């Protein structure tokens, strides 16, 4: 967001009065990330397009349910995209657990990446990628299968051929490490800004 532009929360508040300009501004601001998320999860452009359309229409029609004290507007929107994509994945039915859900995984982050200079990516996004990419591979895989693939812990266990308890541990520890990493990045950012 450029300084002087209305915040996401302000724009969402305007949606309650059916402000189409506010809607256009939100779309222009977040549609690339929303589409990127949907595409990553569904792997098919037309399905991703459907999901993003549904998500933005939900944003438009349910703006009055948005609680700014609970989450950021962007988080809310992406959560809608995520849930719609999960619904679609699960609606497809009995997905083959052995299919290539891992094929879409990005390459592991290089520790040498200077996140502040990663072109075209917000600092926050780069930090999340870095936090995820630097996890041990088995933790990263488990989290990606859960979040982007929509697989249950038992499906992940089957897919990775490990006990379900191992999957639970990988998910928890992986998220805990990411939390620490992102918290540290946040503190460093705050220190730089001070």
């Amino acid at each position, binding site marked *: 967001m450029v300084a002087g532009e209305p915040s996401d929360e302000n724009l969402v508040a305007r949606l309650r009065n*059916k402000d*189409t300009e506010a*809607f*256009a501004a939100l*779309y*222009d601001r977040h*549609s*690339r*990330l*929303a*589409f*990127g*998320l949907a*595409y*990553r999860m569904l792997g098919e*452009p037309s399905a*991703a*397009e459907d999901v*993003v*359309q549904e998500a*933005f*229409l939900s944003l438009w*029609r349910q703006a009055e349910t948005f609680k700014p004290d609970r*989450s950021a507007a962007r*988080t809310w929107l*992406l*959560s809608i*995209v*995520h849930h719609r994509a*999960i619904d679609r994945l699960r609606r497809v039915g009995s997905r083959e657990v052995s299919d290539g859900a891992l094929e879409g995984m*990005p390459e592991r982050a290089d520790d040498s990446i200077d996140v502040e200079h990663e072109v075209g*990516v*917000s600092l*926050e*996004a780069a930090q*999340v*990628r870095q936090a*995820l990419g630097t996890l041990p591979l088995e933790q990263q895989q488990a*989290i990606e299968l*859960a*979040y*982007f693939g*929509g*697989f*249950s*812990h038992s499906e*992940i266990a089957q897919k990775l051929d490990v006990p379900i*308890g191992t*999957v*639970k*541990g990988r*998910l*928890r*520890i*992986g*998220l*805990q490490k*990411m*939390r620490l990493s*992102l918290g540290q990045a946040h503190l460093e950012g705050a220190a730089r800004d001070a």
Partner: protein
Amino acid sequence: MTHDEVGELLGAYALEVVSAEERAVIDEHIKDCPVCAAEVADLMSVHDQLALASVERDPPPALRTRLMNLVELDRNQWLLEQARSAPDQGRPTSNAAWWKRIPMLAYGAGAAVLVAAVVLAVVFANRNSVTVHLFHGSAVAQVVKGIDLQGAAGTVGVRSDHSTDVTFSNLPALPSKLAYELWLIPAKGNPVAVGGFNAGANRSFTMRYNKDATGFAAAAVTIERAPGNWPSPSPNSMAIVVKLAS
């Protein structure tokens, strides 16, 4: 499930990949366990950020166009519902006196028969010409089948000699039994008929009326069923309130 067993599941819980039964147990547990509740909050914050790990991609340009059309249609429907329900909610639906239900104009009563109307609202803030935008969109087209107001636009301006200039472009010619009628709507009281008109062959209409629009809160154009019988005592058509002046 013990505290430790719940703890083992908190990562999966935060990622929403536990079973419904497990979720119910954990939901109950964290109500009384601040340690687990705090960890869930921490892990959920990571979950909320994971979407950012995706690579941004340009959606198809047509998606934006389609969405804007859909929300514009939604907005028109919403405005119509607002106008319909404001003061007379609960009454059997009548299309009467729609101008009283425009949110910016709350007052009075009236009677009506449906055809359709385009309302363009404009505050006559000064004597200079005020540009207003006539509604255009599919909502009107749906109500009046075959009449496509897409692209229609108009201005209503007050001149220093107290006359009012009205100009429209891209107005479709109406069937012989229908005609447009222009109304000035005061903040209180009934609309004042200015005059009837139809678009010419070039879809435009320009007229100077010997009526001072100063002090009126809004202007409206309706599509009436009674050509040649102007001015009507009150608008005989339902309002599709589509754009209120700010």
